[in-house]
């Protein structure tokens, strides 16, 4: 029976989950909004840090939150390698934007394959004290792992937002973006757009590093985990609107609540049916998203 308490729990948990989703989609939003790379490998960029978190905390007994800087570095490295070795050459080969998208799909399959080969189709879950302690606020009770992840997500997104608005490099990146700025004008003003593109992809990678660490504290870790997170990120970026930070939070919270409702109606394994259906409706009615610029 759906009582007021259940509703409050759904709303509360949905909001917290949405905040975490916002961070999980940040990397995709940056890569797409800033560099026009629609990154189908985004989910795998999250999956690799999840595994590193697992192994480091199992082998060295590290607290998962101490692994965040390591994963940021790993994420930045993956972003750097992908941009220099794959995305940039693919976009220069001609054949249009669709070829770059195809190359990200290839990278995604390759990374899933490597993960399956190395770690098999096993479901790992990170043993940590945070997932079993619950914080109760009235009728709403949410695990500590989710709350900490939510807090980190808010801090990380605000930090990146400030970086873009306040620092010179951040402004240069925004100027180079095809959606917010103008790459040609930026290069005339003396900005090295090639370097900026690599740097933006590294920032996108680092943000997936943080997201992967946080998600690993409450989610199962398996080779195909990226598919779900990649699709969720697409849904959130489209709903929120390309090139908008506030939009990420709004999209994230909508998806979080939808998922909570979906798991109530359809069962948790099939909750995404509702999310995807609303997503298609969004594409039809408002493709530029709620806060979109285009």
């Amino acid at each position, binding site marked *: 029976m759906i009582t007021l308490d259940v509703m409050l729990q759904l709303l509360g948990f949905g909001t917290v989950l949405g905040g975490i989703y916002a961070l999980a989609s940040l990397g995709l939003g940056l890569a797409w909004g800033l560099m026009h790379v629609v990154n189908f490998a985004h989910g795998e960029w999250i999956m690799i840090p999840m595994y590193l978190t697992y192994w480091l905390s199992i082998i060295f007994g590290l607290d998962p939150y101490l692994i965040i800087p390591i994963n940021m570095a790993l994420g930045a490295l993956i972003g750097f390698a992908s941009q220099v070795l794959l995305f940039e050459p693919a976009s220069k080969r001609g054949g249009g934007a669709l070829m770059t998208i195809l190359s990200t799909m290839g990278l995604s*399959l390759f990374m899933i394959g490597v993960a399956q080969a190395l770690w098999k189709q096993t479901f790992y879950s990170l043993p940590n004290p945070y997932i079993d302690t619950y914080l109760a606020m009235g009728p709403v009770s949410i695990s500590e792992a989710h709350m900490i992840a939510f807090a980190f997500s808010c801090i990380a997104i605000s930090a990146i937002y400030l970086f873009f608005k306040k620092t010179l490099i951040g402004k240069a990146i925004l100027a180079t973006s095809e959606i917010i700025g103008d790459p040609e004008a930026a290069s005339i003003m003396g900005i090295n757009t090639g370097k900026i593109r690599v740097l933006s992809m590294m920032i996108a990678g680092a943000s997936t590093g943080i997201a992967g660490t946080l998600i690993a504290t409450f989610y199962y870790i398996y080779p195909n985990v990226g598919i779900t997170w990649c*699709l969720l990120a697409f849904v959130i970026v489209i709903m929120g609107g390309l090139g908008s930070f506030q939009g990420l939070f709004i999209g994230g919270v909508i998806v979080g609540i939808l998922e909570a409702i979906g798991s109530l109606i359809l069962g948790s394994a099939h909750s995404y049916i509702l999310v995807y259906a609303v997503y298609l409706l969004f594409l039809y009615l408002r493709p530029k998203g709620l806060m979109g610029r285009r």
Partner: protein
Amino acid sequence: MDLKILKIFVVMASIFLIFSSVFRLLNMYYVVYVVTLILLWAYLGQCWNICYGYAGLLSFGHAAFLGVGAYTSTLLLINYNVTPWIGMLIGGGAAALIGLIMGIPTLKLRGAYFALATIAVAEMVRLITLKLDFITNGPLGLLLPTNLSPLYFYFEDTFHWFIVSLAMLIALLAISYKLENSKLGMALRAVKENEAAAASLGVSLFKYKMIALLLSAFFTGVGGVFFAQFVGYIRPDIVLPPERSDEILLVPLLGGTGTLLGPVIGSVIFIALKHVFLAFFGGGMAGAYLILYGALIMFIVLFMPQGIYPYLSKILVRCKLKA
């Protein structure tokens, strides 16, 4: 249909026919089976090619069409005893309906939106198939009855399957050829070359893209029915997983997108590679196929975006010049 293309079709069909007849006479049915697979994948690849090669629509969700076609006809066969020959039309129609769901929200938008919708719709179809387990038997899937006759699209002899798949491929290639040279084909080419220019000349982008998508979806659905009858067993993780979509798109990419013979060439290479991998890893190494597919896609994008077809036709031209 002009003579040159007719000649190519006849030559291609004869090569396949002679090849499988020889191996059938040698009683090597496995080879005939592999050739049938090659033809099936060439067929599916050409379906994807209608979408991407002709209309510039990048689809990551063709498994949805394949699976919906397969499930529709199989459910009709099991529950209402409808022959899959009719089920083919209904399955194709159901797949086209899924195409409509993908197309309506996204075909008016440019860029990546269509690709995003395809992957979401494919995932949705997979989840719904799992959810409706009282109809689809969930993850366990459906076993097709085996006491069927050719009237019910079932053949004892692998060679007969081969003949049907060859007929399907040739029919699809002929339709694609007609399509390429019709008003629709020209409009699609114009759309692919320069969307803005085509639109300014009064070409209705939405209509033409939608027709291409629906045709592609319909024929993929029909291919799904063949797949179900041929394999005899359908399950969400056989006909609906994302990997299946990736395999379908890999075939024309390897051969050459936007060409008639590209998918056929691509399919020969794809099935050969798949069997080499099967021989080496025997299904024991998880992820080996995905590594192969991913590496192939990245390689094609970086080093031969046109696929193998241009290289092959160059060699053929050189041979002709020498002779």
